[in-house]
């Protein structure tokens, strides 16, 4: 005991034990046992049959008080407790009794356990049956295993679908892009080097495995972003979206230098940071390509000497194609860091065709860089063209060699294409304008569907309504071959002439042809009506001079010879019609020199007929009517 000075007396609680609580709250107490009753109660618990040898305490015959006292001291010195063994045995007995009770309960009460008699079949001893049974059970087992495996596979597939494996994705990437391993990093190359580009700027990108957290985030953001376990990092200068914008503008006099501001089409936006790697790399490659293209053009713009200097201002190259027409090539690179320009309502007027051909031109340059004719014989110097190889044996002159080495710059090629495009549109415009404004005769244009970037052709028919099928001669056809800055014209009679890029020249030519067309229609009508063509001249020297070109005239006589019609048509002076009628003078003095009566009727005055007053839809029908009338008269 810890403190021997402190006396601890242990005795039973003075409180009465509660036997039961009645419904009205009254407590019924157990009567306190007297000392002797207590002793007997305790003595009842003793197993007197048990051997006392293992009990190390005092003999049982000792005084009652001592026993009671000892018992009450027990919690404090268990090893010395004389009744310890007794208690242990009693406890064991109780446990066994409880178990027995439980077992009895289990057996007796059906609610705890139902024991069915197991009917055991006597196993068939025949080996065939045994094998069959074994097989059956094996099949059952295997089907269980298979279905389990199927389930596992399915769940695995689902899991792998959600998050692509890094390595499978890397192998996909490897199939599309050039990759190599540099120490621990995977570095790719998106430049056009392998395709023949010689641009200084490289296009290496880094491939990393994406972090799990980020991945979850991208998944959460929406279905658009494909979950990827692979991340590519492109150099910052290749980020964003770039494109080359080509504009052909009409400017009154001076070059317009103010439009170099970045204009972003509203449909185009920067690549989101979490975009799928393929789209990210593709846009970076496009940025690189556009940069190379622009760098090349800018270098050429500075180097190439031309009559009108090219200007390179910031991200813009400006050059004059025709007076009043300006070509501007702008490199737009939108990285997402620029201030967003509010989308303007003015639609961007840019030339898709020229943009496309610019891209094509650079691709051709790349192609030429890579595709070099293989040398034959094989030890000949590598890197020459086939023509260059035969230069020595074929004894080409120095001039030829210089000519061979000449390569046209991208800029001059695109300027040529622009010139052609502008010229073609101008021609189209002139022809359309004239077709609308001139009702008689009709002008129709047939544009050739096969044309190159530098040449296209159009055939123009001039016809009079209602008289198209009269004769091919009454239909004037002109072919225009539109080149870079000149137009070659093949006329009706096969003559050719060259026109410059000015609209006025084409307009004048067409007006002149229309004037001549009128004359030729009159001639055809006369022929069909049986009239005689006295004179026909497509370019007469008499009369008032036209402001341009020449006027044409025709004189026709009726079959009888008593009516003569003179028609004159000029591009500016218009059409004039005059009629002379001669009354035959039978009583005139006949002369042996005059063999036919019509020669008597040479004199007389012409009287002009107002063409507008004549009946008819157009000039051809008016003349037709008049001629028919006069021949019947």
């Amino acid at each position, binding site marked *: 005991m810890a403190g021997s000075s402190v006396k601890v007396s242990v005795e039973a609680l003075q409180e009465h034990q509660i036997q039961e609580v009645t419904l009205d709250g009254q407590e019924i107490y157990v009567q306190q046992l007297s000392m002797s009753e207590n002793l007997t109660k305790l003595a009842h618990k003793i197993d007197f049959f048990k051997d006392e040898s293992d009990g190390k305490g005092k003999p049982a015959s000792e005084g009652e008080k001592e026993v009671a006292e000892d018992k009450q001291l027990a919690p404090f010195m268990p090893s010395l407790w004389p009744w310890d063994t007794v208690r242990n045995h009693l406890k064991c007995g109780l446990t066994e009794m409880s178990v027995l009770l439980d077992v009895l309960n289990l057996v007796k009460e059906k609610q705890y356990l139902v024991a069915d008699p197991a009917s055991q079949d006597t196993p068939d001893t025949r080996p065939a049956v045994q094998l069959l049974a074994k097989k059956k059970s094996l099949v059952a087992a295997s089907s269980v295993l298979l279905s389990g495996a199927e389930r596992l596979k399915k769940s695995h597939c689902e899991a792998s679908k959600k998050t692509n494996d890094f390595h499978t994705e890397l192998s996909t990437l490897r199939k599309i892009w050039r990759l190599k391993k540099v120490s621990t990093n995977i570095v790719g190359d998106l430049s056009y080097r392998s395709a023949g580009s010689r641009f200084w700027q490289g296009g290496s990108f880094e491939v990393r495995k994406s972090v799990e957290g980020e991945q979850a985030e991208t998944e959460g953001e929406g279905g658009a972003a494909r979950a990827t376990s692979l991340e590519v990092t492109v150099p910052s200068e290749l980020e964003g979206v770039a494109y080359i914008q080509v504009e052909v503008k009409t400017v009154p006099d001076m070059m317009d230098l103010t439009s170099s501001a970045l204009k972003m089409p509203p449909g185009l936006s920067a690549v989101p940071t979490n975009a799928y790697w393929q789209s990210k790399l593709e846009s970076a490659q496009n940025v690189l390509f556009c940069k190379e293209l622009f760098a090349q053009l800018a270098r050429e713009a500075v180097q190439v000497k031309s009559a009108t200097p090219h200007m390179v201002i910031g991200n813009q190259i400006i050059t004059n194609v025709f007076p009043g027409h300006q070509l501007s090539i702008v490199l737009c690179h939108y990285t997402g860091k620029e201030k967003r320009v509010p989308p303007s309502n003015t639609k961007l007027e840019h030339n898709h065709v020229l943009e496309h051909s610019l891209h094509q031109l650079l691709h051709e340059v790349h192609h030429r860089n890579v595709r070099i004719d293989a040398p034959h*014989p*094989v*030890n*000949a110097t*590598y890197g020459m063209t086939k023509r260059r190889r*035969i230069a020595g044996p074929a004894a080409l002159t120095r001039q030829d060699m210089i000519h061979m080495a000449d390569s046209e710059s991208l800029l001059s090629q695109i300027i040529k294409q622009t010139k052609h495009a502008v010229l073609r549109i101008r021609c189209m415009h002139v022809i359309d304008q004239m077709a609308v404004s001139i009702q008689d005769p009709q002008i129709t244009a047939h544009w050739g569907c096969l044309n190159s970037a530098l040449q296209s052709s159009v055939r123009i028919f001039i016809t009079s309504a209602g008289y198209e099928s009269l004769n091919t001669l009454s239909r004037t056809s002109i072919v225009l071959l539109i080149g870079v800055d000149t137009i070659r014209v093949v006329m009706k009679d096969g003559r050719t002439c060259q026109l410059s890029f000015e609209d006025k020249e084409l307009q004048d030519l067409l007006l002149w042809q229309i004037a001549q067309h009128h004359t030729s229609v009159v001639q055809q009508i006369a022929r069909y009506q049986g009239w005689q063509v006295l004179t026909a001249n497509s370019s007469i020297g008499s009369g008032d001079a036209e402001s341009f070109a020449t006027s044409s005239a025709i004189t026709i006589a009726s079959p009888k010879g008593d009516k003569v019609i003179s028609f004159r048509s000029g591009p500016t002076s218009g059409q004039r019609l005059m009629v002379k009628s001669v009354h035959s003078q039978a009583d005139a003095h006949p002369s042996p020199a005059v063999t036919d009566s019509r020669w008597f009727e040479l004199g007389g005055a012409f009287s002009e007929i107002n063409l507008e007053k004549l009946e008819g839809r157009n000039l051809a029908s008016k003349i037709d009517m008049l001629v028919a009338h006069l021949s019947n008269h």
Partner: protein
Amino acid sequence: MEGAGTSYSNAFRFVAPLQEHLLQGSILDAHCEVLLHRLRGLCDNADTTPETFSDYEAVYQLKNNLATPASQYILLRVRQALDHPEAPHHIRYLGQAEVGDKSRHTLVRACFDVACSSNVRDFLNELGFKLDHEYVARGYFFHKGRMKVMVSKIYRMQQPGKTDQNTLEPITQSHMVELSVVAPMGQDSIGEEMKNFAEQLKPLVVLEKFDHKRLP
């Protein structure tokens, strides 16, 4: 020709200071397919079928007046593409091969190529050159950058001057592999470039610099 004291090699260098860097090796016919496959992958224009060639080469020699043993003969090689009759004939002079020490990765020799008309062989005969030997080389041509790779099979001609298919007889059961760059003098970085390329063909074919003088 009158032997003015300068060696011809030097004279040619003065005219066109070009040098050929060369590595050579050979591969058995059975494994040639594998090599071609690898070369296709390594070289430029992998998307096109490899260029084939069929060349006839005739080597002409003229006895030199100079008594130095190294340049006892002047050799000129005339080559002609059999499969491209329109291509000009080629005459080629090769200088002394410089094997160099270990630091040099390739064999280097002066090289002079001229395209010429088809009557060049008659011309050489007139000059006093004698036909030394002739052969036909057929094979595949690859290029990577400025490097030329030629995989060729050498055929002996049973009848002199006849290049028909049925008169040709392969000399060995293997293909010759040559890696060559013709470049202006003084570009020693090519050697490194070529060595790296040769490394990539290593288990299949070992490209080395061979000293032709020491060959048996």
